[in-house]
């Protein structure tokens, strides 16, 4: 089954390109033919001349990023984008969600959906659509939301996963909080799941784990692509009997998103080291899994600086319901977790630490909350890697900050005239704020 990716705006296109790079390198690297073929089928279309064409649609409201991407990949010779799989305009969306959603989206709906349709038709069987975008700007966020709506209407039975990149807290775009709030509130109704990467977190990974001195956006994008690739590449699920999982997106959804109020997913991937130290690193499954578990419950995204003081709350004897007062401070409660193990000796890995009910919210039985995929094929040159996709309170604080800042700005009505002139009213803003406060409240009570 195949996945079609829709890359939206500058960020979506830049990260998307790195994603295909990682996947193609990973698939080419490996000696395992079945894995390789499954990965190729999933992400690329092989043409008559044995060329690999990415199953991807590139959309942007200004041309520079897309032309660069296409040129770069054509040069590399390993894979390329489809000749007619891209659409760009000249003007850009001016960092204005309203401009993207109310003007550009509807204006170009037909052309864009045409390209998507063609790409979907190239697939023997569609597993799902991954839409990649940032929330801070105008195109990724505004046009991206509109396109997601169109995808939902056109493919009501397909899975749609939105991959979002959240901007640096200290600001890349001044109105980023408005754009983020509008995007998230709309996507929550349209998307099946929302997988989030935060620039701040990835930046720290680059700085502290990978020791990159002058971090560029390319470095950040590569880490995001590595993490996303490690989730989407083929793996064996519990009941797949030796065949690679056919629909990773569908399985992701069913494992992690059991309730429509809880759709925010985050990814943790260890180990993450610089390529120069890889040769000198030895990892064991017990070591990796111990760190990963603590990263989950102490809400840390990196192997360094984990707070080992945070412990899972002790279980109450049967019959007594656990209430909020038993939650320890700093403890990250999960709704559901998906553990993916890739590499040598996977079958020896001891994962019971992730199945303990104390990690999870009480209203979902622990054995339904935890799932695992594995494959003996190593990912992207890492002999062993452990990936945790979780639906937990990890994003609660960043989301709350984002809504708080946007609300403060809204209280003074700053910049609102820029949105109302394109058709987004104060009412619309209030609706968005309300839905996100609801999400925050739901996650707080896990």
């Amino acid at each position, binding site marked *: 089954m195949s996945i079609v990716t829709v890359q939206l705006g500058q960020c979506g296109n830049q990260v998307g390109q790195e994603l295909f790079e990682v996947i193609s390198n990973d698939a080419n690297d490996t000696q395992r033919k079945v894995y390789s073929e499954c990965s190729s089928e999933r992400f690329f279309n092989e043409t008559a001349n044995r060329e690999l064409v990415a199953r991807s649609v590139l959309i942007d409201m200004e041309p520079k990023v897309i032309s660069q991407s296409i040129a770069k990949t054509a040069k590399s010779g390993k894979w390329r984008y489809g000749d007619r799989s891209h659409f760009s305009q000249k003007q850009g969306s001016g960092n*204005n969600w309203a401009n993207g959603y109310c003007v550009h989206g509807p204006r170009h709906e037909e052309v864009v959906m045409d390209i998507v349709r063609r790409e979907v038709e190239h697939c023997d069987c569609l597993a799902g659509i991954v839409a990649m975008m940032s929330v801070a700007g105008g195109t990724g966020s505004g046009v991206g939301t509109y396109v997601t709506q169109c995808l939902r209407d056109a493919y009501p039975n397909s899975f749609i996963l939105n991959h979002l990149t959240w901007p640096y807290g200290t600001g890349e775009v001044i109105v980023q909080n408005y754009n983020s709030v509008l995007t998230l509130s709309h996507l929550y109704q349209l998307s099946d799941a929302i997988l989030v990467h935060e620039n701040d977190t990835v930046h720290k990974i680059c700085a502290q784990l990978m020791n990159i001195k002058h971090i560029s*956006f390319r470095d950040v994008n590569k880490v995001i692509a590595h993490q996303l690739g490690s989730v989407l590449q083929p793996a064996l699920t519990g009941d797949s009997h030796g065949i690679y999982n056919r629909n990773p997106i569908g399985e992701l959804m069913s494992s992690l998103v059991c309730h429509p109020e809880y759709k925010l997913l985050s990814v943790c991937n260890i180990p993450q080291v610089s390529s120069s130290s890889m040769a000198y690193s030895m990892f064991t499954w017990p070591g990796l899994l111990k760190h990963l578990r603590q990263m989950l419950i102490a809400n840390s995204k990196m192997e360094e600086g984990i707070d080992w003081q945070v412990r899972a709350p002790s279980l109450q004897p049967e019959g007594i319901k656990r209430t909020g007062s038993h939650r320890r401070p700093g403890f990250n409660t999960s709704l559901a977790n998906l553990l993916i193990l890739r590499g040598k000796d996977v079958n020896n890995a001891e994962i019971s630490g992730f199945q303990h009910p104390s990690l999870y919210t009480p209203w979902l039985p622990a054995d339904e909350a935890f799932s695992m995929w594995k494959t003996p094929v190593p990912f992207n040159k890492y002999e062993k890697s452990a990936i945790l996709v979780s639906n937990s309170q990890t994003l609660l604080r960043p989301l709350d900050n984002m809504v708080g800042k946007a609300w403060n700005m809204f209280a003074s009505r700053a910049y609102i005239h820029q949105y109302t002139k394109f058709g987004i009213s104060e009412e619309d803003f209030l609706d968005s704020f309300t839905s996100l406060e609801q999400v925050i409240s739901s996650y707080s009570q896990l």
Partner: protein
Amino acid sequence: MTQSVVVQVGQCGNQVGCRFWDLALREHSHVNKKGIYDEALSSFFRNVDSRLMSSLQAVLVDMEEGVVNEILQGPLRELFDSTQLITDVSGSGNNWAVGHWTYGSAYREQIVDQLRRAAEHCDCLQCFFLIHSMGGGTGSGLGTCVLKLLEEEFPEVCRIVTSVYPSAEDDVVTSPYNSVLAMRELTEHADCVLPVENQSLVDIVNKIKHMSHSGKPGSVIKKDSAIISGQGGVSGAEKPFDAMNNIVANLLLNITSSARFEGSLNMDLNEIAMNLVPFPRLHYLVPSLTPLYTLADVNIPTRRLDQMFTDAFSKDHQLIRADPKHSLYLACALMVRGNVQVSDLRRNIERLKPMLPFVSWNQEGWKTGLCSVPPVGHSHSLLALANNTCVKSTFMELRDRFTKLYRKKAHMHHYLHVDGMEQGCFTEAISSLSSLIEEYSQLDATKDRLMPDAARLNIAT
């Protein structure tokens, strides 16, 4: 690729405009060695025929012929099509009313015609750049009339105005009248205004000269440097205001760099207006440019890179005399060119943030852009645009100078004689300026007060 059209009005506007074309050409020929008309060039130049000499998307307006004639005889003459020039003979006599009402109505059709032509040549017109001075008659009066026309004819195209404000020692006696009358138009009809003061430009030029003559090793100004004048440019010998005009021209070059060249975080012109203008009338942005001089070595270590960021917030590098650090920042944009990475940018923002007071609802109010192509002769550069309440002091000074003349009704008869001009224009203009100052003051008042966070919505659980 989007296009922009430059409209230069009056003596100052045209002189600055020409320096801008000179630098733009030099920048593009530096980047585009093959001389092929490419995407980047198309933002300001249109392809007339297969020669490289393409035509500028510009409209030049002046009510006396001196400056425009010089252009027509200078080396840039091949780039201008005679229809792009709108001139008259006698000038406006430093009288805003003559510029705005008399010439405004006389040349209205011709100007609209030219603007439409320029716009039609553009595939996708994003922005009009208006360059003028505030103190005189043509730039100030006719220039603001053109601004109104732009809003009427092309309401969806962004209007960015570069205005040169007169200094207190300006030799034009009526410059306060002209400036205040023009201010009203700018407040009502422009999307963004980049105010520039002659005195600051003079200070900067002196500083550069001082650096180059001080004999410090490593502070030699490179020959190619786009900052200092025509050496290496198309025009050759330097004229009196050239150095100052160069700085303003550089401002325009840097603002548009991300629209013309690639980068890892693009910042388009419409994004500037979107991010830096929280309330429609408060659209006056303080520009600062760094570095002002090139250093001899190319691989500048990080310390010097950080210095560039620090300098952008120092008064010496601003193009108007005001003190942003002691006023309130509403928003700030950093446009970086050259080999600078996002980590450098983030590090410097973290470092500088504690020293800069931001308004309570925009504590992280930074808009950033990274363009990979540096300006000619430099390895990197930084343009900072700040929407800061410090412009209030410039406006207050202007208001004072106006009031001194207005109280005595000095020179007013020259204005009131002009058809279309009435006493009401003066009172409206001064009240517009006063209310603008008041809006800035109200925001300023929040500065040292600890503003509580707005109470969040309560959701029924």
